[in-house]
């Protein structure tokens, strides 16, 4: 968040002209088309859209899991390496961007305790002194509201919310410039989701980490993010401060997305017919 008169915030992430196509046989699907955005220190960008709109493809490109066909990703001014060779390059890329998925098992090792996972990550990233690592582990776990008991537990012994918080602690252990969250709170119960959302808000304020928050849930994006970018069939429909976007959605697709959220006065019949109009003849 920038306050008026404050010096320009540091740029963490610069994405320009990103494009990704998937081919199957003769047909070609443009999953992401001409995507550009900038994220500054302590900023949070929401990426919203329906399933198949290109959200996860975007997240995967941001962490180097998917190679864009065109465009560029700069993390703190440095291009995100398309391929990594050697330990130093791998560590550097890990430090640039970390991701938390909807399924925390993807980032936790099911065979070892949460504490051992964190210890391993810290060791890999050059923390030599075991006592200092243990202290840092405790600090990270405390930051996500977990304690000694959870530290000693295997992932499957924790509740879904605790596991997701452990996955976040693991990502934070790397001290990345940017944290990408791909539907990371979607599977959580609301009471637990609220704990994680508050945690993200606090970490962002206290560490200046940049968040890219991929979600289909507009209310959650409204809570976590300053800006939101609406994807529809791989294209950016609008990219604006999230409050503006919700108060006066400009694009018909954004209007539809907003109208689709259940609340008093919700009219699913009109949403269905508007959706058909928007999709047009196939």
């Amino acid at each position, binding site marked *: 968040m920038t306050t008026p008169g404050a010096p320009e915030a540091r740029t963490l992430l610069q994405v320009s002209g990103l494009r990704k196509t998937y081919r199957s046989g003769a047909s070609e699907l443009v999953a992401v088309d001409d995507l550009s955005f900038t994220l500054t220190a302590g900023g949070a960008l929401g990426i919203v859209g329906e399933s198949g709109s290109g959200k996860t493809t975007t997240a995967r490109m941001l962490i180097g899991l998917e190679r864009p066909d065109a465009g560029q990703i700069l993390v703190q001014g440095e291009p995100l390496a398309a391929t990594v060779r050697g330990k130093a390059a791998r560590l550097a890329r890990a430090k640039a961007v970390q991701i938390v998925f909807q399924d925390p098992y993807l980032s936790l090792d099911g065979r070892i305790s949460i504490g051992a996972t964190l210890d391993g990550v810290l060791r890999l990233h050059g923390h030599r002194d075991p006592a200092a690592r243990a202290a840092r582990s405790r600090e990270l776990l405390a930051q996500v509201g977990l304690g000694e008991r959870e530290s000693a537990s295997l992932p499957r012994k924790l509740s879904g919310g605790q596991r997701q918080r452990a996955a976040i602690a693991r990502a934070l252990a790397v001290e990345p410039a940017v944290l990408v969250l791909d539907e990371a709170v979607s599977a959580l119960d609301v009471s637990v989701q609220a704990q994680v959302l508050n945690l993200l808000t606090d970490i962002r304020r206290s560490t200046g980490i940049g968040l890219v928050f991929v979600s289909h849930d507009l209310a959650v994006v409204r809570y976590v993010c300053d800006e939101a970018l609406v994807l529809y069939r791989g294209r950016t429909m609008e990219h604006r401060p999230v409050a503006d976007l919700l108060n006066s959605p400009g694009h018909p697709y954004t209007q539809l997305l907003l109208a689709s959220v259940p609340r008093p006065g919700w009219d699913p019949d009109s949403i269905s017919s508007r*959706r058909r109009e928007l999709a047009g003849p196939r």
Partner: protein
Amino acid sequence: MALLEYEALSISLPGTARPVLDGIDLTVRAGEVVALVGESGSGKSVTARAALGLFPAGATVGGRVRVEGTDLVGADAAELRTVRTGTASMIFQDPRAGINPVRRIGDFLTEPLRLVHRWSRERANARALELLAAVGLPDPVRHLRQFPHELSGGMLQRVMIAGALTVEPRLLLCDEPTTALDVSTQAEIMAVLGRLQRERDLGLLLITHDIDLAAAACDRIYVMYAGRIVETATTAELFAAPRHPYTAGLLGSTPPLTAPEGPPARLIPIPGAPMGLLDSAPGCAFAARCRFAAPGLCDQSPPPLELHGTALVACHRADELVDAQPNTLMREDS
């Protein structure tokens, strides 16, 4: 006679510390749309399945579940068949889990009619086409010949709704029917369900963890926590004045879509996590997470479901809290 009526239904499993369901009282009348809301593991699906006479293997079952007067606890095979293939149908969260991936949509829809109800192929096909059109699918004739993987999640969920309607049920049990879908598709599915419910005057029990969806779609809401109903009220009343601290906590944890200018107010999470089957509490199951918990009161006997105003609430302190404004109930420091 209510269409669906639970009366003190309790279900216990061996080797667990608390019942899966503990004295469930719940009613759905013909033409009524009722929501059952609660967090993961609270017992919503077990409740819904009981309405088809499906109980977990090895469970001890007490109380009653009646569908159009037939008690499914201890029902015989003929009674079960009447309910399952006639009166009540269920729709699940994941449409792909409920359909054989190597059979055509047409077989899925017509087989129950042909095998159970002895319809001719022509008659069953005609009915399947009619139902595919009724759930708003664009090309019924083609869909009959398609395989499940050729349809999107939203389209396949419509097929499942069509499947649930083949037997012309009076009661539709919908267990998280839209949770796997994005919001716009969710709206479409709810539009289809709403239209069919009105046209056919069905009783509908919507099971969801999304209290906003429950509010938008239902007349009345039951809130469930750790196998018990803790509050039930009309939707309007529940939102205007939640009486149970857990209900208030759910509302306080849900980020609002629209808020006044400026940064959104901080959410007030419920501390801790829902109780598993291996945890038990002698009194109120919510006490460990409740900021109103009073020693010597809330840790005694479980609170009974009692009438407060027009809401039913299970909380020892409901009398005191009933006058509290909702924002007081939800505020961090009381």
